[in-house]
């Protein structure tokens, strides 16, 4: 049984890589399931040994990748508390917020060789839950003015060398939110919770 500390950056990088990969897959799947973009731009890909939907649009993909690339160092240092995917209406009011709460234990313990396969199984369950979240959520208002924002709540001071902007109050605050928990996972390397905040009246 190997016990590593947070100072072991190699392992921290591995965990950050795993999480960022998962977040990329999850964001693409949310866009597909919630019909933020037309389904024609998505194609079937494979991740964690199951089929997932991923966008083909280069600018969209680049935007998601760039955002996650900036988030990665924060996750590495366990500074990012939540990663939120916000779907807004045309008035820039949030309609749905998919909140990924992430926390990593200070003392990472690798208890078995099957750790990564276990984590893969848990992430697969997350993907499956996102696929069926339609059942518990109301449909979004029609129209092409749905936006995607990624908000990161920091536990410490924000980085100075990255163009972060403080989110507007109206983009953060949701009127009459309804909380729908989707999935929780606990593993040796990361604890994650996914829930959705949905506005009671979407139209």
């Amino acid at each position, binding site marked *: 049984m190997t016990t590593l500390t947070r100072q072991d950056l190699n392992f921290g990088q591995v965990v950050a890589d795993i999480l960022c990969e998962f977040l990329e897959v999850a964001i693409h799947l949310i866009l597909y399931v919630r019909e933020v973009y037309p389904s024609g731009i998505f194609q079937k890909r494979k991740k964690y040994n199951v*089929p997932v939907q991923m966008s083909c649009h280069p600018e969209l993909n680049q935007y998601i990748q760039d955002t996650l690339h900036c988030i990665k160092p924060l996750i590495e240092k366990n500074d990012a508390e939540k990663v939120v995917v916000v779907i807004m209406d045309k008035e820039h009011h949030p309609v749905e917020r998919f909140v990924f709460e992430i926390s990593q234990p200070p003392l990472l313990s690798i208890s078995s060789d099957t750790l990564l396969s276990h984590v893969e199984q848990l992430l697969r369950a997350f993907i499956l839950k996102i*696929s069926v979240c339609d059942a518990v959520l109301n449909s979004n208002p029609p129209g092409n003015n749905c936006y995607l924002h990624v908000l990161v709540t920091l536990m410490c001071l924000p980085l100075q060398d990255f163009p972060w902007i403080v989110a507007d109050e109206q983009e953060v605050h949701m009127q009459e939110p309804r909380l729908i928990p989707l999935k929780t996972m606990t593993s040796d390397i990361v604890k994650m919770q996914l829930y959705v905040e949905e506005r009671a009246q979407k139209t």
Partner: protein
Amino acid sequence: MDELYLDNIDEYVNDHNKIVTYKWLSLTLGVHVNTAKQMLYHYLDHKRKESSAQLHATYLVSGKFVDNGQTSHKVSVVREDQLEDFKAKMSLVVSVHVYSVQRALLRDSGPLYAVDYDAVKDNLKNCSRYSAIHCASAVPMSSVELQQAREVQQAPTPEAENKKAGMNGDTSPVLKSSAKPPKGIMGMFANKSAPKSQDNTKEMKPEKKEDIEAPKSKPVAKANPVANFFGTQTLKKPEKPVKEEEAPQSSSRAAQQHERSKPEEKQETVAPVEPQIDTKKDSRSKTKRLEDSDGEEEKMEKKKRRRIKKPEPDSSDEDVIPDSPQPVVTREPSSPSPKKEVEPDRHSHPSSSEMKIRKRRQVMKSHTFLDDDGCMVTEKGYVSESYSESEDDFKPSKQASRDPIKAKPSSSKEDEKKTQKKASANSNKGAKQASIMGFFQKK
């Protein structure tokens, strides 16, 4: 039937918001798949009658389908709203049953696979326990039989790879357009082997020999990167006999020969210095080549033999270099016999040394043999058309190297030998690498 299963399914579907497939249900509850299908049907029927929360279902439809006059058996998973249309299109419906029940409307079949994936993975050793498909002879092997099967599998897998590469080669135009670049080490091999194979094919085409191999080299290069790594070496090998044969014959293709001479020299230096590696290459050629690998080896051996024999009749030819015995004709010494032939050739060569203006392949051979006095003599022969001067330099150097032990008292000769060898080495460097490290530096 016990009604408890209805509550179970209701809990899974409504409370947990799961997708309940018949396979997952049979593995979870430990019932036969047909029972699970009936359970799902009854549950769906029950809920529809109660008109409670909205449920969605998918169905598996199998039957005969006629498409453009061709009848085929089709098995599909369709959503409930597409079921009637699909059944109408089929000429004969053999089976229809509920595949899954869930609350969410599924947009694609991906989640269905994910559900079964985890269920099967958790019950990997007995995933077909409740299955309706049975085969009496499908019995798990014992550990002894399993080990034997693994040993047998290791032998035919290289052959299978060859066959696969062959099949891919046949459909290479399609593969090229749709294949994605392999990543990591495989991609590195693919990138390296592709240009190499193309260069080799360019050289081979003017010779118009082994044309069959040329087109195959490219699809082989792209389809099987690992094989290419060995394939490029095997491609070079047949070039040797081919080029060696043509060199004495064609005198008009001076430029081409000059180009060929450089890679050939490298190959030739490799061959004599490390004959063992040649055998390894042969073995690789056996496993990796698609064609008659054995036939190739025989051809190569024949060509080798031809090469060995050639110097004798060629000894009178003016093409061969004077003093440098074997290097002239680019033999591959695989045994002492070529060394013996070298000696008589050496004597015959000096007469024809002066002529050579003909451009020939450049070969450098290093032969170690026992002379009459039992001394180990190492001879280095190097021929270069452009280096006509060096040929003269080699004469005395070789004569001096003959008797290394006897030459001890005559230190002056040794000095000459060293200086001449240095000069020759320097001149050689311009054309090719003459050392054993040349093989490794290639990589």
